[in-house]
């Protein structure tokens, strides 16, 4: 057999993994154009809103409200201090309820996560109550505690308790066995064990659970305020609805949304700080 000989060959890094994608990226729009496309829809909606309300007659006053009117209502409410009072009331209840629910949830989660016996004992009850929407408890709690602060705090606590408990239990159970073995091998105990192994391992899922709980509880609180309250953003919106003041309602919606976003982003920041060692 004869072989045609040629130059020696050297090894070369595999190109194929990147090249075809590179070929694909070459097609399509320029990156700047693509990014600005994202603003198209919101801008279109905003324009539509302004356009329809500009030409609306008086008869449609409570069906459509212009952005200007919403801003005016916001300014009015802020000026009279009403808005601030409502926000303070809502936030106060959220804070107390969240604190109560979160601490109870942490406690239960730690115990349930560490001791399977507890989990099997309480598990089914926990699950049964958890999957009932928090809002469904409102009638019951109103009958028990009246329309005062207590019932709202209780419902926020309920809404906070379950996600936090679940996340904590998962976090505790998720501490890898191997870490605990290492701890035992190097005789890391007590406070050190907590600080160097248990806490860093469990804190991330717990904080995620806290964030989810916060978001959910905020929604539940607003709903509770709509149904039965004397103050708060939810109640402000409900009163606006009863008085057919769409602009007031929209102000409420705006602030509810912004508050929710702020809370969520705040928690995410905390999450990220605590997880500096971890890549998302």
């Amino acid at each position: 057999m004869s072989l045609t000989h040629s130059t020696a060959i050297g090894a070369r890094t595999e190109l194929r993994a990147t090249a075809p994608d590179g070929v694909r990226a070459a097609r399509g729009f320029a990156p700047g154009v693509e990014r600005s496309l994202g603003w198209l829809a919101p801008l279109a909606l905003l324009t539509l809103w302004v356009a329809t309300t500009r030409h609306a007659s008086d008869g449609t006053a409570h069906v459509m409200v212009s952005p200007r009117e919403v801003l005016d209502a916001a300014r009015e409410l802020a000026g009279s201090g009403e808005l601030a009072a409502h926000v303070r009331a809502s936030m106060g209840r959220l804070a107390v309820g969240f604190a109560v629910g979160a601490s109870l949830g942490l406690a239960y989660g730690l115990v349930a996560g560490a001791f399977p016996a507890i989990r099997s004992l309480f598990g089914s009850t926990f699950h049964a109550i958890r999957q009932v929407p928090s809002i469904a408890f409102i009638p019951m709690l109103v009958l028990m505690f009246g329309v005062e602060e207590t019932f709202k705090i209780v419902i926020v606590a309920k809404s906070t308790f379950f996600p936090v408990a679940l996340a904590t239990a998962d976090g505790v159970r998720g501490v890898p066995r191997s870490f605990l073995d290492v701890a035992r091998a190097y005789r890391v105990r007590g406070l050190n064990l907590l600080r160097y192994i248990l806490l860093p391992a469990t804190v991330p899922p717990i904080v995620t659970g806290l964030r989810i709980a916060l978001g959910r509880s905020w929604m539940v609180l607003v709903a509770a305020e709509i149904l039965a309250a004397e103050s708060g953003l939810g109640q402000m919106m409900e009163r606006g609805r009863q008085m057919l003041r769409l602009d007031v309602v929209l102000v409420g919606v705006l602030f509810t949304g912004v508050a929710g976003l702020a809370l969520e982003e705040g928690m995410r920041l905390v999450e990220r700080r605590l997880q500096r060692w971890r890549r998302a």
Partner: protein
Amino acid sequence: MRAALQVRGVRKAYELHGRTLPVLADIDLDLEPGQFVSIVGASGCGKSTLLRLIAGLEGDYAGQIQIDGVPITGPGLERGIVFQDHRLLPWLTVADNVRIALLNRPITAEAAASLVREHLALVGLQGFETAYPHQLSGGMAQRAAIARALINDPKVLLLDEPFGALDALTRIRLQGELQRIWLRNRSAMLMVTHDVREAVYLSDLVIVMGGSPGRIVSRARVPLPHPRDRALAELREIEEEILSQLIGPADAPANPVVAATTAA
């Protein structure tokens, strides 16, 4: 007789962030009907790219690729392809996976069913028609992929490192299976592999590629009759000759992939 596959002067380059990266240069090769040809070479020499061009899965090249004298335009059922990962659709049974290759053939359901049965028997998977891919071993799944590639009676069967993802023992077993299937079926085979021993054992012709951009460095004929005994001394000689080409004199650290092939 016309060559089943004819590749003339093929060149390809990728555009990456404005730079041009040449991958293939001046590839000429012929595949006779019923012939078994392997392409070996180090990683990155473009052999898989060449196969994908022939399969029609990639385009944008200079030169000519013809099947039976007809230039190719994209993928076609006259070229079957077996990938390194079996690519069986996980939601279909083995039989349905093979049958899916018949979607664009105007045949009756009964004819399709019997074709499927026939080809599953050919690859030794009779009885596994209703199994799901996740229930199969790697070797069995790859056999199903081969059945799927052969069911349209392709003029050329393209295999892209078909046994690369399997363990060593399964690989050896499947090499024997492939030889048996090919002898029954006799379609032209073009296989890309990094395993020189595998190439020499199975092929009539081994094409060695290398360099950057990839070129054909040499062609080694293996004029031994089929079916072959793995232990033949002549096979070893040809293998050594090819390896000495791949592991060039200037190479201090040996290419780990090729080094593994040389181990007994």
